[in-house]
């Protein structure tokens, strides 16, 4: 173990406490929404009632893409991105690379949204930042992801904010390791019969210690993603390419080869998808066509990591002849340490390298991180509550955020289920979150005590959770369990059960809170000093 001197340990305890307390509330919001967003795909399928069985890339797409090509102005034929949207529908972004008003590289073009029968539902024109907003059928999962990624703060400030939160988490995780003098003993120390605060401290310590490696990985990869485009790429481009971000991007992600601008129609995309599926055993997650309509066109097929691997798979095809060229790393032209390192950052952060199992573990550990953040802040506040009256309000604010955020998220899910059939989910999903959050804040102001506030928010969240499956079935018109299971979507039934169980657990937990003697709160401060 690392044994620091007394003064150094004291400094690390202060760093650990302050890193959490200064940004803990925002960090809790990012971690909680990130935990839920681990299942964003499943939540999207559950909320919008997805029952299509086949990936869009397992069906013919070539004729559809040629039809879209004929409709698209030639200036956007430079490149095409193809990916799945909604219930195995197709998203196709025909675009060109250009510089925005500030000289930053951007993509501008036309984004077609098609259903799984090839019918165009919507066409949007603009830059990539403008066209890839939430849709009516994915407003809920989009809202979750956007909250996690940038807390709805406009770019680049939102990404910078979550990046700083990631650094705070990194500091808390590293200082957490340094202040444990008996790390392995602490993993198993849970004194259930001790005073309430010692029990709370043990729980914080045990949950924190078990999830320390995970916290470190999440904070590290999360900071990387937040700072990658906002600070990292411009700085590295400045140092290595005199500020030319396009040159850096081409060096890292490009497919170098001799230029051949002769106009040649793109090869058969169905042949490419079939070959990619036969090589990897699963449908692509994304197809990127560069130099579309030229003799030197390339098609890159991206896939999730294989069962025994953590690095995503990418296959390169000759676009004009639709023939396989080679497997390539997701970053760089040949396998390298840097390419592997950059390639595994995504799977490590999203936990999507071993199917539902790894994501379930990531969800559980994310939940543990929420618990650690909450209990850590609560211990800090309780220990100092008697020193300043304002800390009583901080304790109440902590309760509003900790229990009000899940309430707001479940309210936004309920609003999504009610308004999606009307086509207004993009507006009402975040609006319901704001209304519920305002309600939670109001409750925080008027509630007679912190315990009553906790109780109220738990009951409200639990009640909405219990109602969610009913809204999905009877208001949103979602599939029943038999239909969902027959369509290979058991996750819909599983999430229904999960919401009801979690709802009952919260309501029962609130009743338990009511029965806990108030002396617990009274002894909390004294015991915190122990």
């Amino acid at each position, binding site marked *: 173990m690392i044994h*620091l001197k007394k*003064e*150094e340990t004291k*400094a*690390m305890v202060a*760093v650990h406490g302050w890193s959490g307390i200064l940004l803990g509330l925002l960090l809790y919001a990012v971690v909680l929404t990130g935990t839920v967003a681990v299942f964003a795909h499943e939540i999207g399928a559950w909320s919008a009632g997805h029952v299509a069985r086949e990936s869009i890339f397992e069906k013919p797409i070539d004729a559809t893409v040629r039809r879209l090509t004929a409709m698209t102005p030639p200036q956007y034929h430079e490149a095409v991105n193809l990916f799945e949207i909604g219930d195995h529908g197709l998203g196709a972004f025909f675009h060109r690379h250009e510089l925005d008003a500030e000289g930053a590289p951007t993509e501008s073009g036309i984004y077609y949204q098609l259903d799984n029968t090839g019918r165009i539902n919507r066409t949007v024109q603009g830059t990539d930042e403008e066209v890839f907003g939430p849709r009516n059928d994915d407003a809920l999962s989009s809202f979750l992801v956007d909250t996690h990624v940038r807390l709805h703060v406009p770019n680049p400030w939102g990404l910078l904010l979550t990046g700083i939160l*990631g*650094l705070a988490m*990194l*500091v808390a995780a*590293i*200082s957490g390791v340094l202040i444990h003098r008996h790390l392995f003993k602490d993993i198993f120390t849970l004194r259930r019969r001790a005073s309430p605060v010692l029990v709370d401290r043990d729980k914080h310590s045990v949950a924190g210690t078990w999830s320390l490696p995970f916290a470190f990985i999440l*904070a*590290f990869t999360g*900071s*990387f993603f937040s*700072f*990658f485009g906002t*600070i*990292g*790429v411009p*700085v*590295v481009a*400045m*140092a*290595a*390419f*005199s500020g030319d971000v396009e040159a*850096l991007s081409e*060096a*890292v992600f490009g497919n170098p080869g001799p230029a051949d601008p002769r106009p040649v129609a793109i090869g058969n995309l169905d042949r490419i998808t079939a070959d990619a599926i036969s090589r990897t055993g699963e449908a692509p997650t994304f197809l990127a066509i560069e130099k579309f309509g030229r003799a030197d066109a390339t098609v890159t097929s991206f896939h999730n990591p294989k069962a025994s691997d953590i690095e995503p798979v990418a296959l390169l095809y000759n676009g004009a002849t639709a023939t396989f060229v080679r497997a390539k*790393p997701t*970053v*760089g*032209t*040949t*396998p*390298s*340490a*840097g*390419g592997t*390192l*950059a390639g595994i*950052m995504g799977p490590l952060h999203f936990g999507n390298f071993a199917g539902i199992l790894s994501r379930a573990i990531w969800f559980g550990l994310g939940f543990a991180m929420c618990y650690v953040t909450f209990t850590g802040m609560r211990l800090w506040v309780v220990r100092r509550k008697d020193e300043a009256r304002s800390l009583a309000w901080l304790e109440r604010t902590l309760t509003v955020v900790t229990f009000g955020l899940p309430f707001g998220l479940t309210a936004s899910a309920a609003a999504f289920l009610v308004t999606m059939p009307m086509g207004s989910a993009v507006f009402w999903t975040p609006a319901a979150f704001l209304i519920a959050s305002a309600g939670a804040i109001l409750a925080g102001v008027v509630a007679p005590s912190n315990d009553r506030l906790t109780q109220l928010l738990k009951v409200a969240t639990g009640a909405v959770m219990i109602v969610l499956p009913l809204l999905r079935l009877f208001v949103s018109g979602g599939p029943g369990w038999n239909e969902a299971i027959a369509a290979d979507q058991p996750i819909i039934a599983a999430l229904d059960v999960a919401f009801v169980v979690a709802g009952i657990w919260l309501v029962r937990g609130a009743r338990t809170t009511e029965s806990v003697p108030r002396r617990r709160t009274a002894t909390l401060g004294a015991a915190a000093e122990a």
Partner: protein
Amino acid sequence: MPLWLPGGAAGIDNLVFPLVFAPLIWAILFFHACLDRSIARVALVAAALFLIHGGLVASRFIGEAPAAEKAQ
């Protein structure tokens, strides 16, 4: 770092490593600042790193160190 790290097998390690390890590099500097009892030493290390890397970038701009371009 892009100017002095080796490019590796794909010629991109010098570009990717600084991007990936930026949070860890920051954390190392942060904990050094917290744990080193000599504030002068902390300032000296930070200033030395700043000057070395600032100098490399400046020399790149005046055309004396086109290392990254050669690596491509």
